[in-house]
């Protein structure tokens, strides 16, 4: 059995390389939506936060988790919506 630390680091390494490959292909005209979209993805912290906010023990960790859920939700909801709003504006020449 691989130790958890090694396993997680392995995932980290692969994702970083994958990220570089993917992002290099994004044209410069889409860099702003790329950033706001990446912002939305970084709201993934919400997934880690919900399990902390829902322990039912009203201790510090619970409150910190709830705060994190709120902040990360701003990122997720705001990030995806504003990216969609921007991308809807990108249009190709008519008739081309």
């Amino acid at each position, binding site marked *: 059995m691989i130790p958890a630390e090694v396993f997680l680091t392995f*995932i980290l390494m692969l*994702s*970083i390389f*994958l*990220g570089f490959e*993917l*992002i*290099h292909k*994004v*044209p*410069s*005209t*889409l860099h*702003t*939506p*790329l*950033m*706001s*979209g*990446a912002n*939305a*993805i*970084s*709201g*993934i*912290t*919400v*997934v*880690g936060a*919900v*399990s*902390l906010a*829902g*322990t039912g023990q009203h201790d*510090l*960790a*619970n*409150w*910190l*988790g*709830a705060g*994190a859920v*709120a*902040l*990360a939700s*701003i*990122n*997720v*909801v*705001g*990030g995806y919506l*504003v990216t*969609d*709003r*921007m*991308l809807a504006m*990108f*249009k*190709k020449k008519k008739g*081309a």
Partner: protein
Amino acid sequence: MDNLTQFAYVVAAALFILGLKQLGSPATARRGNTISAVGMLLAIVAALLDQGIVEYQWIAIGFVAGGLVGAAAARLVKMTAMPEMVALFNGFGGMASLLVGWAAISPAAGTFTLVTIVLSILIGGLTFTGSLVAYGKLSEKLGSGAVMFQGQQVVNSLIVLGIVAGAVMFCVEPANHLWLYLVVGLSLLFGIMAVIPIGGADMPVVISLLNSYSGLAACAAGFAVDNNILIVAGSLVGASGIILTQIMCKAMNRSLSNVLFSGFGSGKVESAEVEGEIKPISVEDAFYVLEAATNVAIIPGYGMAVAQAQHVVKELMELLERNGAEVNFGIHPVAGRMPGHMNVLLAEADVAYDHLLEMDDINPRMANVDVAIVIGANDVVNPAAREVESSPIYGMPVINVDQARTVFVLKRSMASGFAGIENPLFYKDNTRMLFGDAKESIGGLVREFG
């Protein structure tokens, strides 16, 4: 852990990757964003089904509060204000990771977990305050200049030393909360100190870098709470921010450390001798030249955003095209206050994206351009970058508007660009200065055509 949840995370990761892949072309980008959002929804639902959760009340309150704020911000933000908004969102992401790292502290945590907790607090904290300062500078709530003071390096070094010492002590003695508070406090302070010496025009680099940090903070939080999907998504964002940072630095011909530490634009720069004289032109005369032009290039800069001139520029473009001219836009990678800023503004004004040319595509065509119109750009069209070896921007790739037959420079006044660098372009024989507010000047041209 629950197998189903883990499996859902795998699917979510695949959706994120697919979504980013589709962002490779403007035609599929919107679908890509939706795919990515579906991935996020799946990950969140999976996390909610986790058996460890016994109480949903606070989760729901957090979701609703955050969701409402996010939705309102996304709907209301002006396209010219996108850089501020992205900066602010970076900060929220960082703070969320800080809180998750903090909440993950438990007496059972091993050294590896403690190290990742410290990292998520550190990166999250500096991302938060750094982003707030960047937000302040971009929205002009703070002065946008570089703030330098005597002994700045010493102070910063002490903060870094303090963070390292605090972090080590925290890992050794996690029960003592003093170390935790020390790391939290100093990380927050460090974010402020790191961004204040960076001037407004270098903000594209800073936002990109903070974007990267917000991802890395999520990544570290993923290690802290032992969660794969945080690591995958966080590192995708981290990689994205780093690539954008590299592109921005390359476009300014400066190293990252030069951008971060040099306080570029804070000092007075001695100007090289410039020969020639300034030749102003009236809107009327400019119109006659444009009417005869068959090939027009428009080079927008931050000034176009400030003047909110993108819509009237589009009107002018349509009139020129109706008049038989070919019109293209030349977009420098660091034009504006964030990567791709100009493209979004022009897209908002309904300019088709195939008219937006990158610097390397427009430069070879420049010799065939009859009129190049520079709107609120300065350093990115400065020929000193090619010609004047003593110039601070020497070597920076620029859009060679001076090679067009005629250049119109729309400018408020003769004040120099942010870096205080003299621009020889204004003195060239083929350059005419159209002074005044960009929106009004272009509006004047549009009326002449009408």
